[in-house]
């Protein structure tokens, strides 16, 4: 995908700036892919995996958060104040920050724990999350 972008940009007359932009945009991705996974030229698979993992994260977290205490507190604050969009902005920024923290912690753990241990811990904590959700369902 990056290569196609470069070609198109190079053929335009005013494309020098654009060309530089696309190159600097595409540079980090192959470098990251090579250092983190040691796989070359598997773009379709990479994109598919990206979409799959995005969808997995989105669906599970969305279903888990629906009617959760965060949503309820956002709702309460919105009802009390006259400016719902400021509440929404603050809540959204906080949620992005916490999930960024979560991903960084996960990456940090993945670097120091072996894959086998990580799989076990992941399985156990996902089961723990499902127990929390069942608890919520019963007590709601």
């Amino acid at each position, binding site marked *: 995908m990056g290569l196609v972008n470069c070609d198109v940009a190079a053929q335009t007359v005013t494309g020098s700036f654009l060309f530089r932009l696309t190159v600097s945009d595409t540079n980090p991705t192959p470098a990251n892919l090579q250092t*983190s996974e040691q796989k070359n030229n598997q773009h379709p698979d990479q994109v598919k995996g*990206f979409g799959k*993992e*995005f969808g*997995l*994260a*989105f669906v*599970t*977290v*969305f*279903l*888990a*958060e*629906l*009617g*959760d*205490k*965060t*949503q309820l*507190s956002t*709702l309460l*604050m*919105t009802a009390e*104040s006259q*400016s*719902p969009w*400021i509440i929404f902005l*603050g*809540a*959204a920024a*906080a949620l*992005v920050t*916490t*999930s*960024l*923290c*979560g*991903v960084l912690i*996960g*990456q940090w*753990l*993945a670097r120091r*724990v072996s*894959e*086998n241990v990580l*799989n*076990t*811990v*992941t*399985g*156990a*904590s*996902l*089961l*723990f*999350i*499902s127990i929390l*959700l069942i608890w919520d*369902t019963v007590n*709601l």
Partner: protein
Amino acid sequence: MDWNLLGLSFVVVFLAELGDKSQLAAITLSGNCQHPRAIFLGTSSALIFASLLGVLLGEGVGQLLPTHLMKAIAAIGFALLGISFLWSSNEEPEA
């Protein structure tokens, strides 16, 4: 722009979410995946969408979407994921 209100909602939601199950999910999913950015984008957009629904619909969200059913579906999904991860860690003792 009411910075007080913005700060208040940020702090409340940040503290409520810290160590909550969605953050736990972000930690565990990103530890095992090949695209941490996908997990970050997926979890944060799901959270933003959920709170957007909360803001837009107010108390109607409970009536519109059966929360019990959604949570039950999510619980089953998480349980299946957890079992599949435990399964794969048993299948590959080395590594």
